[in-house]
C-alpha cells in the first residue's frame, strides 16, 4: 500500500488513479507547462504567450489573469501553481520600462525552481501575421540548434537544454514518417537568439530520402538573453539521477567487438575428442567378409616379405 504523503488520502479508485498519475514514477509523463502573465503586459507579450501556448497545446495551461509576482525574487507562488497543475515548466511574460517584452522560461524539479532564463523579445511575428496553413496540434516538432554559442557558452548550453525540454513533446518509440512536419530552428548569433518555426514539405527526390522544402508558419522571435538563474551543480546532478531500474540489463556471456561483431560464450563440459559422435559414412566403414579377409591377408603377406 502506497503512503500518500499529501493532504488527501484517496477514497475512490478514480482519485487513486489521479494521484498515482501525479506521483513520482520510473518513466515520467510529458512535462506540463504553465503560461502566465505578470503585473503588467503589452500586446506583444500576450500575443506571444498565446502563440507559444498554441505550439505546446495539449500539455500546457494558459492563465488568463495577471499574477503580480516576480519570479527572480520570490518563486513561492510559481511553486504553488506548479503543485496545483502538476506542471514542471513555466513561461512568465511581463512588460515594464526597464525590461520591455520580457519572457521568462523556467523549469522545476520536485516543485522547486531549477533553472530560469529571461529572454527579451526584440522582434516578433505572430502566428496570425504569417498567412499559411499551419501544422496540426500536437505534432512532435523537430528541433535544430545552430551556432557555436550553443556549444561554448554555459548559459547558452542551459538554454539549449531548457528549450529542448520545453518544446520536445512526448517521448515516443516511433514516429509516422509523413507526420514529420514541424521544425523549430534556433540560431545563436551575436548574443541574440533567433527562433523560427517552419513547416517541412517532403518532396520527391531520386532516392528514398525525400528532399526538404521549408515554409515559414508559426511565430518568429528575435530574442536577447537577459538575466539567468541557473541551478547549482549538485541540484542539477540530483535532478538528472535516473532510477536504477531504468538502466538496460547487461546480458551475461555476450561481448561486442570493436567492429560491432557480437560474441557469445558457451560453457561446455570436458569432451573426449576421440569418442565424438560424427556422421557415419557407410562406404568408409570397415567391411567384414571375404573382401576384408583378402585385404588383411595381403597386408600380412607384405609384412612377412619385408621381414625376410
Amino acid at each position, binding site marked *: 500500500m502506497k503512503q500518500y504523503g499529501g493532504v488527501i488520502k484517496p477514497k475512490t479508485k478514480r482519485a487513486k488513479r489521479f494521484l498515482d498519475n501525479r506521483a513520482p514514477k520510473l518513466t515520467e509523463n510529458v512535462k506540463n507547462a504553465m503560461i502566465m502573465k505578470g503585473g503588467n503586459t503589452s500586446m506583444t507579450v500576450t500575443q506571444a504567450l498565446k502563440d507559444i501556448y498554441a505550439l505546446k497545446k495539449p500539455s500546457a495551461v494558459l492563465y488568463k489573469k495577471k499574477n503580480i509576482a516576480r519570479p527572480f525574487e520570490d518563486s513561492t507562488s510559481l511553486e504553488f501553481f506548479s503543485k496545483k497543475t502538476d506542471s514542471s515548466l513555466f513561461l512568465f511574460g511581463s512588460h515594464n520600462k526597464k525590461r520591455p517584452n520580457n519572457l521568462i522560461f523556467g523549469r522545476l524539479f520536485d516543485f522547486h525552481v531549477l533553472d530560469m532564463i529571461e529572454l527579451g523579445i526584440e522582434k516578433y511575428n505572430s502566428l496570425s501575421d504569417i498567412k499559411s496553413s499551419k501544422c496540426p496540434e500536437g505534432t512532435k516538432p523537430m528541433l535544430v540548434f545552430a551556432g557555436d554559442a550553443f556549444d561554448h557558452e554555459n548559459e547558452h548550453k542551459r538554454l539549449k537544454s531548457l528549450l529542448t525540454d520545453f518544446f520536445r513533446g512526448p517521448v515516443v518509440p516511433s*514516429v509516422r514518417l509523413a507526420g514529420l512536419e514541424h521544425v523549430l530552428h534556433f540560431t545563436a548569433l551575436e548574443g541574440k537568439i533567433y527562433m523560427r518555426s517552419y513547416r517541412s514539405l517532403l518532396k520527391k527526390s531520386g532516392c528514398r530520402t525525400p528532399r*526538404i522544402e521549408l515554409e515559414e508558419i508559426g511565430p518568429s522571435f528575435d530574442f536577447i538573453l537577459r538575466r539567468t538563474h541557473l541551478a547549482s551543480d549538485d541540484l542539477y546532478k540530483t*535532478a538528472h539521477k535516473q532510477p536504477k531500474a531504468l538502466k538496460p540489463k547487461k546480458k551475461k556471456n555476450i561481448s561486442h567487438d570493436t567492429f560491432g561483431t557480437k560474441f557469445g560464450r558457451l560453457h561446455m563440459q570436458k569432451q573426449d575428442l576421440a569418442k565424438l559422435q560424427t556422421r557415419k559414412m557407410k562406404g568408409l566403414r570397415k567391411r567384414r567378409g571375404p573382401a576384408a579377409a583378402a585385404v588383411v591377408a595381403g597386408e600380412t603377406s607384405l609384412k612377412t616379405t619385408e621381414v625376410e
Partner: protein
Amino acid sequence: MAACSIEDVLAKAEQDEAEKLRSITVQKELDLEFDIGNLVAYDKNRIDIRQFREQKKDDFLRSLARDNTQLLINEIWKHPTERVEEVIVVKLPEPTTALPREKPPPKPRPPTKWEEFAKLKGIQKKKKTNLVWDDVAKNELHRLRNIARAQKIKVPGVGLTPTAQQSTTDLSRAVNVAKVSTASAGKFQDRLPKEKAPRNTGKKRKFQPVIGNFSSEKQRQLDLLKVMDSKKPRLDVNKAVNKQMREDDREESAAKFRKGGKKGRKGGNFSGKGKGGKGKGGGGKGRAGGKGQGPPGGKKGAGKR
C-alpha cells in the same frame, strides 16, 4: 568500340546517381550531432556574420534551416521503418540528451505486513502455472491404470520390466520392443541366424477396401440387418453388470487404500474403525448405483468387444 561504350555507360550511371543524391546532400564543415530519440540536431558550425548581414535575415535563416533540416531528415531515414496499419512508421532509438527529471525517482515502498511475515518465516513466492487438469484425460488415465492393475503389467513398458518367471512370449515381446527402439526404428538391426521375423507387426486394424468384393459386402450388410432385426439382445446384461460392479469395487478399494495410507499413519486407533464403517456404507451405495447404471455401462463394454 565496345570498351568505350562500357565506360560511357558506367560514367553515365555514376552521373545519374550523383544527380539523384545532389538534391539531398548538404555540404557542411562540421558534421551535425543528432539525438534522433528527441528529433534534435545540433549544428556547431560557425555562422558567417557577413553573409548574414548581406542577405535578408529571414532568407539566410531559412536557407540555414533548410540545410540543417535536410541533414536531420537524412539521419532519420537511416533508421529502420515498419508498417503499422497502412502507415509507414520509423522506429526511434532512445533519447541521448540527458534532461532533468520533473520529480525525484520513486522511493521503494515499505514492506507490507504480509511481506514482513513472509520474510521472517522464509516463505517464498511460488508461481502457479496456468496448466489445468483435463477431465477427459483423467478418465483415460484411470482406465489404463485399472487395466494395468488387472493384468499385472506395469504401465510404462511392454515386457521391459523383468519379473521372476518370464514366458517365451514375454521375452520375445521384450526383444521386439528393444529392437524397434533405435533411432531408425529398427530398420538396420541385424537378426540372429535362426531368428524369425516378429509377428503381429503392421496395421493394428484392417479396413476393407472401398471398392472390393461386392458380394461379400452385400452379405455383410445383410447380416448386420438380420442381427438388428432379431429380438434377442446382443449383449449379455448379467455379464455387463457384473463387470461394472467389479470395476466400481476396485476403484473404491483403491480410494480407501489411498486414504487409509495417508491418514492411517497419523490417526491411530479410532480412524481405523471409522474407516471400516464408512467403507461398508460406501460399498452398499456403490453397488446400488452400479445396478442402476448396469445397462448403459454394459452397452459400452459390448461395443468395445
